């Protein structure tokens, strides 16, 4: 005799209770506070804000805590929250030239107005495990200097003055919002950049790396990488002028790439662009390289069939929330489909076996 299995409801409740317990870990160890995550795991917080498309360090830190440190899960929590928020409007374009730079480096000029500012970078650290940190996290204070009161001009503006860098065509005043309108292809550059800005860091890193290794190589120099705080302003129709609604930290990367020209036009450098929330420079550089690779049509280059040139491939597969959901859904029951496949393969096998038997007997 057989009694059908039931119990989905209870299993879910119990799984959730166990998850909560595991998330907390050993209760003899003090619990992490959201502020600790925000302050001490700031780069994780930045990634969650960038790929979650929501600038809120406290909320991102909370999501990381809730997700047990699984950043894609944390990004998912942020996205699901973000989607419930109303859209009030678009801000004015941020003026990254007015940025208070924590870091600003150029690989194309040894020095330029504004100077090279290394900032808090891992770049020249030796990657040796610091065992002292395990016991004692105290640090001294870093030497400080006063920030420059004048704006730091973009390196690109110097190339532009000589007409050496290609001019960017002006886009629509307010571009479509990727999260409010369905992505239809071909997408314009504004939509592509939105998609790349929230795309998975690892996926974009791999694609960018592939362009360096020859799959649509476009020979990028980092003309400038800058990280710092910028003001966000918004026009308020009732007031008739723009007011500052907040300040965000962003990473901006501009690459200067191989030149092109024709009989009628002297050669010019071209540009790739990356802009990401927070201090996220690996992502910003990757974004700039992939942006540049995707511009092949507009710049009159050949499509060499490289993955990074394929807009549909890049845009449809860079979103880690879409990817992880669909990938993991194969854990869900597929009894019904599998059953129909079972029946089909049994039928095909028995037919094939009959044919073999017949041939043997003949």
């Amino acid at each position: 005799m057989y009694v059908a299995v039931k119990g989905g409801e209870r299993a879910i409740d119990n799984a959730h209770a166990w998850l909560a317990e595991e998330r907390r870990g050993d209760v003899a160890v003090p619990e992490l506070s959201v502020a600790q995550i925000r302050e001490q795991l700031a780069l994780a917080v930045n990634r969650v804000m960038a790929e979650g498309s929501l600038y809120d360090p406290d909320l991102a830190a909370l999501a990381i805590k809730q997700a047990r440190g699984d950043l894609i899960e944390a990004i998912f929590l942020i996205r699901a929250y973000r989607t419930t928020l109303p859209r009030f409007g678009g801000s004015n374009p941020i003026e990254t030239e007015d940025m208070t730079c924590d870091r600003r480096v150029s690989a194309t000029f040894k020095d330029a107005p504004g100077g090279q500012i290394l900032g808090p970078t891992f770049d020249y650290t030796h990657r040796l495990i610091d065992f002292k940190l395990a016991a004692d996290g105290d640090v001294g204070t870093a030497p400080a200097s006063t920030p420059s009161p004048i704006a730091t001009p973009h390196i690109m503006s110097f190339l532009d003055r000589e007409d050496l860098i290609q001019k960017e065509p002006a886009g629509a005043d307010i571009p479509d919002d990727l999260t409010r309108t369905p992505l239809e292809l071909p997408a314009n550059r504004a939509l592509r950049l939105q998609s790349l800005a929230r795309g998975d860091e690892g996926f974009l890193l791999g694609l960018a790396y592939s362009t360096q290794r020859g799959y649509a190589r476009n020979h990028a120099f980092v003309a400038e990488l800058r990280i710092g705080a910028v003001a966000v302003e918004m026009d308020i129709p009732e007031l008739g002028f723009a007011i500052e609604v907040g300040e965000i930290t962003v990473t901006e990367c501009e690459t200067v790439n191989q030149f092109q020209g024709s009989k009628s036009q002297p050669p010019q450098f071209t540009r790739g662009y990356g802009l990401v929330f927070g201090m996220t420079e690996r992502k910003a550089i990757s974004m700039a390289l992939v942006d540049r690779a995707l511009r092949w049509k507009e710049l009159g280059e050949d499509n060499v069939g490289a993955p990074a040139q394929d807009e549909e491939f890049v845009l449809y597969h860079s979103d880690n929330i879409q990817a992880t959901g669909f990938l993991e859904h194969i854990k869900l029951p597929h009894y019904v489909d599998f059953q129909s496949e079972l029946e089909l393969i049994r039928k095909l096998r028995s037919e094939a076996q009959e044919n073999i038997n017949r041939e043997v007997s003949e």
Partner: protein
Amino acid sequence: MSDYNFAYLDEQTKRMIRRAILKGLAIPGYQVPFASREMPMPYGWGTGGVQVSAAVLTPDDTFKVIDQGADDTTNAVSIRRFFQKTAGVAITEATSKASVIQTRHRIPEENLRADQILVYQVPIPEPLRFLEPSEVETRKMHALEEYGLMHVKLYEDISQHGDIATAYAYPVKVEGRYVMDPSPIPKFDNPKLEMAGIQLFGAGREQRIYAIPPYTQVVSLDFDDYPFQPTKADHACDLCAAEDSYLDELIVDDEGGRMFMCSDTDYCANRRKQGHVGAQGVPYAEDQA
């Protein structure tokens, strides 16, 4: 849960989704792009169906959710709870009592009525996707009604295997125009796609909605000499003895012993309530005690 709007989504979003649904009903089988929202469950787990359900549910509705035909599979439980929490609608496991049924991979055995809506969760809405990976190309093929590739695929199946080797998500042509993916239902369910109820298909990750209005012609693709055949396991349900329902196969011992039972749990329970007992079943009352 008063922090969220009725059925989770804000009214603007629901209006956008309803417009896509209406367009889908006006052009049966056509995939309407819509600005799919991030839902609090993962893409690939029914976000399209959930958004469509959220857009059609009213406070007076009675909601049923099935996955693989069953009400108590974990993801069905999860989605049902979501709407209990965010919409506070009445819920049921009885097909006949539901006004909106969200499903994954099955059509209920019981015929639906004109006052019922069946919402499908769709993973890959594009029936041509595995023949042509590019969305730009497949949209062009639909626009030009260029379905030769699909027929070639079915023909190649026959030449290679002696049969059309598609057992689920079997492609259909709707009202003589659009080739449509009926979602991964077993082909056993295909004949039921012509029904009195409204059928809505939601693909969240792929941002598409499509629909079959009531009493619309839905033809499973085939050839004159290889006609479409809906198939199921050649058994009766071991619990309720039904011979006309789609069956799940269970492995019941270490020797690989098998038994079969209805995938539609409500259908099976109803039959047992009426006194039908399968080869390995027990009378309904004993089981419930």
